[in-house]
């Protein structure tokens, strides 16, 4: 049978605020257990929550960036369940009145563009972390330890419509969300540290069927690779069951990256009834048009807008515009470099191949080098002015990255400036012609490779500094 895959993603993005959602504890990650805690986030008796205003604005930003409607009258609800990482016995979240609804974003998989619906975005507090002693596996642990540093750290949960039709699309969607929240500066997007977590709702149905199949929720997707692999393996599992005449059980499944398989998380505690109700400790949140406008006006330029601007006013190709806008850091570097007068197209090429290539080899990030946009611009301008060749530029880039010295200084110190003086080059050309009588004959006999050899010899003798244009000009003149 021909199956259609239906996927919806729930992405939890940790908001990169200074303090937590409901108290003033440091929201940043620390490995020292229970050092970012206070009576409020440990659910001590009598303690009350107060909402961090920045989290509301961050949620609004994500909503506006994904074309959502922002709800005017918001409320926070309690989601009640018992677990040792949940200090109050309930999680403060939003239930039937999420702050953002009905948005969308566009993804592009191999040139095919699709619009993916966003059902809702809501704010909630994170739970703490449990360390299971004696084993990585909760089942074999003899006891567990609760670290509440993460308790009440702000999250935005971004829920997509079941509009995704393949693992590639799901990955592209998740990448797009990550790109947006990073551009907005509301989340660092770090998947290894759990700042961005993803659950996938997966089902399959015969092609042409309009009703949805029974879905499973797959958790623990900690990288884009994991999203893709987990979806593929779960889809395979579901299709196998259905083709053998079985039925899918609606359940939560855990993805194990090491074994590349999903496993049921069903526990004997089947009584799930979260008993949501409006949190009486928190008052309604009223968002008026003026507030929305203020946040909207302060939104940074988003990847899509940047891409279009680069194509229209910087004449970049769609490919170049795409690659340069993927990462927020790269695009910032790019914009600053061209602000110093470097040509956009050259800048894209240099950043994407030479700069990132060199950094990759060294295993460091753009932010960790001594290369500044100004230094890169200076280097590119030297090429543009024919002071040095591209080839020379490539040889000195590692030194700039290493030392932060400017290109002009390195070129001067090492005498690398391109020679464009006709007389000087002519001397070298004549000498090479004299020494290579046989080659000259070949050229005259019509062998084009021989010409290349001759140019190579001239460049070599000039230590790569001879202006190639002038070399060619003189050769043609002297040999004709």
């Amino acid at each position, binding site marked *: 049978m021909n199956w259609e895959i239906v996927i919806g993603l729930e992405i939890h993005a940790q908001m990169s605020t200074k303090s937590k959602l409901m108290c003033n*504890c440091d929201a940043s990650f620390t490995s020292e257990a229970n050092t970012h805690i206070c009576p409020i986030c440990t659910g001590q008796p009598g303690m009350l929550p107060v909402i961090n205003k920045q989290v509301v604005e961050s949620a609004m930003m994500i909503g506006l960036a994904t074309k959502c409607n922002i709800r005017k009258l918001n409320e926070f609800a309690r989601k009640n369940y018992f677990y040792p990482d949940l200090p109050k016995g309930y999680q403060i979240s939003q239930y039937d009145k999420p702050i953002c609804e009905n948005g969308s974003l566009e993804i592009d998989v191999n040139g095919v563009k699709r619009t993916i619906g966003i059902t809702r975005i809501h704010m909630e507090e994170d739970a703490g972390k449990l360390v299971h002693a004696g084993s990585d596996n909760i089942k074999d642990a003899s006891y567990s330890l609760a670290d509440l540093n993460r308790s009440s750290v702000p999250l935005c949960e971004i829920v997509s419509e079941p509009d995704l039709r393949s693992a590639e699309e799901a990955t592209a969607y998740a990448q797009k969300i990550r790109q947006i929240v990073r551009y907005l500066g509301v989340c660092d997007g770090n998947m290894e540290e759990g700042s961005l977590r993803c659950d996938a709702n997966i089902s399959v149905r015969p092609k042409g069927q309009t009703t949805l199949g029974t879905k499973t929720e797959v958790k623990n997707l900690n990288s884009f690779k994991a999203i893709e692999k987990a979806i593929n393996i779960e889809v395979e599992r579901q299709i196998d069951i259905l083709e053998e005449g079985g039925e899918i059980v609606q359940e939560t499944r855990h993805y194990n990256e090491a074994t590349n398989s999903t496993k049921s998380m069903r526990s004997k505690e089947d009584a799930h009834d979260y008993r949501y109700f409006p949190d009486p400790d928190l008052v309604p949140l009223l968002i008026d048009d003026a507030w929305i406008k203020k946040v909207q006006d302060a939104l940074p330029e988003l990847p899509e807008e940047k891409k279009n601007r680069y194509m229209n006013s910087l004449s970049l190709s769609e490919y170049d515009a795409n690659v340069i806008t993927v990462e927020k850091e790269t695009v910032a570097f790019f914009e600053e470099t061209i602000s110093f007068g470097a040509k956009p197209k050259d800048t894209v090429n240099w950043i994407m191949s030479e700069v990132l290539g060199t950094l990759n080899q060294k295993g460091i990030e753009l932010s960790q080098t001594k290369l500044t946009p100004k230094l890169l611009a200076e280097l590119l301008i030297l090429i543009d002015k024919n002071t040095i060749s591209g080839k020379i530029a490539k040889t000195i880039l590692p030194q700039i990255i290493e030392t932060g010295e400017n290109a002009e200084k390195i070129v001067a110190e090492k005498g690398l400036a391109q020679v464009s003086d006709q007389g000087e080059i002519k001397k070298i050309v004549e000498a090479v012609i004299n020494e290579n009588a046989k080659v000259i004959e070949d050229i005259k006999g019509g062998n084009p490779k021989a010409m290349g050899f001759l140019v190579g010899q001239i460049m070599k003798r000039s230590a790569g500094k001879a202006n190639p244009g002038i070399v060619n000009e003189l050769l043609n003149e002297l040999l004709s």
Partner: protein
Amino acid sequence: MTIDKKTVEHLAKLSRLRFSDNELVSFTKSLDDIFQYANSLQKVNTDGISPSAHAIPLQNVFKEDEVITYKDIDKLLDNCADVENHCFKVPRILTN
């Protein structure tokens, strides 16, 4: 709507309480009495009435995004029955 023993057992499970048989019977009886009485609410016409989650309407109460470090963290841990490695220790979560 009447409350039976099975309902009370389910509620106990949801609220992490455990009862003896006698307690179950007694809670079932008192809950049933209370809801028999509270069912009088059903005769109130509430069409179009919005629910009040608060006694007094207030809105938009926020804190600023600033870090204030709590000084008595060790005292928080002192109240825990079982602490290990500066963590709240609990018995094994799964038993099967």
